[in-house]
């Protein structure tokens, strides 16, 4: 620790250059944090998936509907604990497609029982059960539009017109929060019975099902059993674990992760070059001083350690600040709630970032440090005679 003074004071030399290096490292780690948050935003569906849940959809495509009678039929299959249906409502709010959010008619009690990740106070749940046109709304969504309990929200749906073609009327009776950081709380859920009765067409159909299995280890078996049950019927199903279903969407985007990694690598490589060059320069300029340290008795190993400590200190100050800034930015919430409802910097990525900070410091400093270590004292101290 005593040597920290020496290392710290060395940074005060050439403040401008140190600041610029610090700033470029800061920028690199802000970028790292940002990209990790974006990646997590896309992957949230996968990370939050329940290990004991399956998604059952129409085999041909997700946009085709299934009968509501499938629910009870599935619950009779051994291994199935419960089945809950969702339907894509495609609500348009204030006639503005930009106001997009996910909206779904569901059956309140089974829905809340299946989706324990949505936390709804008991009294609000009771209000929902009592109010036919009631809807529960996620916390993030209320923040976006400033909705409160008791607000009346009219919505239209281009795919599900109402009988008589009026708008669908809803009353907000509850606000739900997420059990975990990555839970999506941007949804709008209302009652299926209200929907099914007033819809102009498609009575008795739903979009897809979530199914909970009794035994997590028999997930594949149960999935096959469900698909077998409905094989060769007019509505064939495809059942897969929730994680795989979410993953499928991300896969459709193409090799997103590869692109992100590519960008990050390019950035880090560049920053490494900059930091490394600055370090090397700094060491070159201090040849005489390093010689003095050695003359005074600092061992080669100690000099190596001092140079490495300096480079790690620079990357630490810049890098940790950058990670912190990225974390704070993500904590403010999503910059594009319509596309990325979930937005935060996961802890594992922060830890990875810290690791990278020190790795960067070591790699950037190692060559100059070795150079310093191998300095011949007499050469370093030599004055022009």
């Amino acid at each position, binding site marked *: 620790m005593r040597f920290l003074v020496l290392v710290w004071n060395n940074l005060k030399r050439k403040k*401008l*250059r140190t600041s*610029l*290096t610090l*700033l*470029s490292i800061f*920028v*690199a780690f*802000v*970028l790292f944090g*940002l*990209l990790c948050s*974006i990646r997590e935003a896309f992957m949230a569906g996968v990370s939050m998936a329940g290990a004991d849940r399956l998604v059952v959809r129409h*085999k*041909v*495509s*997700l*946009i*085709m*509907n299934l009968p509501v009678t499938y629910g009870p039929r599935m619950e009779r299959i051994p291994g199935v604990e419960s089945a809950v249906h969702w339907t894509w409502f*495609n609500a*348009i709010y204030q*006639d503005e*497609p930009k106001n997009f959010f996910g909206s779904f008619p569901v059956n309140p009690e089974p829905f809340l029982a299946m989706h324990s990740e949505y936390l709804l106070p008991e009294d609000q749940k009771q209000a929902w059960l009592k109010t036919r046109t009631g809807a529960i709304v996620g916390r993030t969504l209320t923040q976006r539009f400033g909705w409160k309990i008791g607000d009346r929200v009219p919505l*239209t749906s*281009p*795919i599900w017109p109402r009988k008589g073609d009026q708008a669908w009327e809803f009353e907000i009776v509850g606000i739900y929060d997420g059990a975990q950081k990555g839970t999506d709380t941007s949804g709008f859920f209302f009652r299926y019975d209200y929907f099914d009765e007033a819809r102009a067409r498609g009575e008795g159909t739903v979009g897809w099902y979530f199914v909970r299995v009794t035994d997590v280890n028999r997930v594949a078996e149960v999935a096959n059993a469900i698909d077998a049950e409905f094989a*060769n019927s*007019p509505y*064939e199903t*495809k059942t897969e674990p929730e994680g795989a279903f979410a*993953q*499928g*969407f991300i*896969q*459709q*985007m*193409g*090799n997103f992760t590869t*692109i992100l990694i*590519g*960008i990050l690598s*390019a*950035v880090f*490589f*560049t*920053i490494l*070059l*900059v930091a490394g*060059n*600055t370090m*090397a*320069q700094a060491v070159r300029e201090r040849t005489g001083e390093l010689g003095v340290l050695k003359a005074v008795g600092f061992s080669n190993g100690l000099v190596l350690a001092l140079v490495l400590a300096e480079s790690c200190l620079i990357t630490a100050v810049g890098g940790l600040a950058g990670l912190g800034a990225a974390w704070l930015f993500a904590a403010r919430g999503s910059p*594009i709630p319509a*596309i990325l409802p979930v937005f935060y910097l996961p802890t594992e990525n922060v830890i990875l970032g810290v690791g990278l900070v020190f790795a960067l410091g070591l790699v950037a400093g190692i060559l100059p440090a070795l150079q310093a270590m191998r300095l011949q004292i007499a050469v370093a101290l030599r004055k022009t005679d």
Partner: protein
Amino acid sequence: MINWLSQVASITFFNLRTIPHRKGAAVTAAVGIAGVVAVFVGVFSIAEGFRAAMTVAGPDDVAIVLRSGSDSEMTSGLSREEVRLIADAPGVARMPGGPLASAELFVIINLPKRSTGTDANVPLRGVEKAAAAVRGDIRIVEGRMFEPGRNEVVVGVGAARACSGLGLGRAIRVGQTEWKVVGIFSGGGGAAESEIWTDAAVLQPAYHRGDSFQSVYARLTSPQAFQEFKDALTTNPRLKVKVLRQAEYLAEQSSMLTGFIKGFGVIIASLMALGALFGALNTMYSAVAARTHEIATLRALGFGASPIILSVMVESLALALVGGAVGAAAAYVAFDGFQAATINWQTFSQVAFAFTVTPRLLTYAVTWAAAIGLLGGLFPALRAARLPVAAALRDT
């Protein structure tokens, strides 16, 4: 003036000649800028490619009609009555067989994507006989067009490339039935190439659509006839529709994803540019610091401040342009023409496209690089100019 210019020139050449001595720092700055440019070009080539696929400059006389309030075909719905009214509207070109209009259905079918092996949403379009004629740029490149009423499909070249199992002679399963791939078509590089087409009459029962459609594609008598066509439809009390030119519609459909990619790209590129700027500043400051003595000597000899400033900036600019050129070239070689497919959230289906490095994109990139170079040289240059000459000369 000539004197001034020659001062700038001579100092600049002198500076540039000393670059080999400062290889390390110079290479660093150049590489930093090359990196920024490469990433910038790479990310934006995705946006450009995607946009190009979605908005191929087709004929200007094709209109699309959707239900009013729908922002895409998927969420639109038109009855047979409405479709008939639309096809009979004024402004629609007519052929011996009838109006040049095609009522269409747009749905999704899940098929395995080649690059990931997992299922992707592939657009499946039910069309009427006139569909190809309406669009004008559809050509069968292999096999033949499907026959109406039969379980046959034709596949766009983009879809065939992106998904497995869509070759000529293969079959896709829709519920209980198998539909045979009888032809592959090209669509001038546009969005249609990512689609699978079949007879609307066959698609409707398979997807339980009764007798409804989702859109009408109509070829107009001339581009100018659009207004007449639109007015006729929007003033008709029996219709509640939205009328767009095809180009407009496609641009709208790609706006969200293109916007997202561009926004993303700008943020990334800005942050990287900032980092590169700091690197450039560092390089130039140390360059100036290393030459304090020389610069002071020049000033003592009578060279003015502004030639010195300019020479430093020119040096920085030169480094940046070299870095920018290298980065741009690398990006072009690596990215241009790279085939990819991704999901367009607005249509909820795959679009096949190629990364496209356009000349405009390259120009932007090199401009960024130049800006970084100029800024990176400006402050060090000013510092060089304001050196106290006597003190600097005394410095060993």
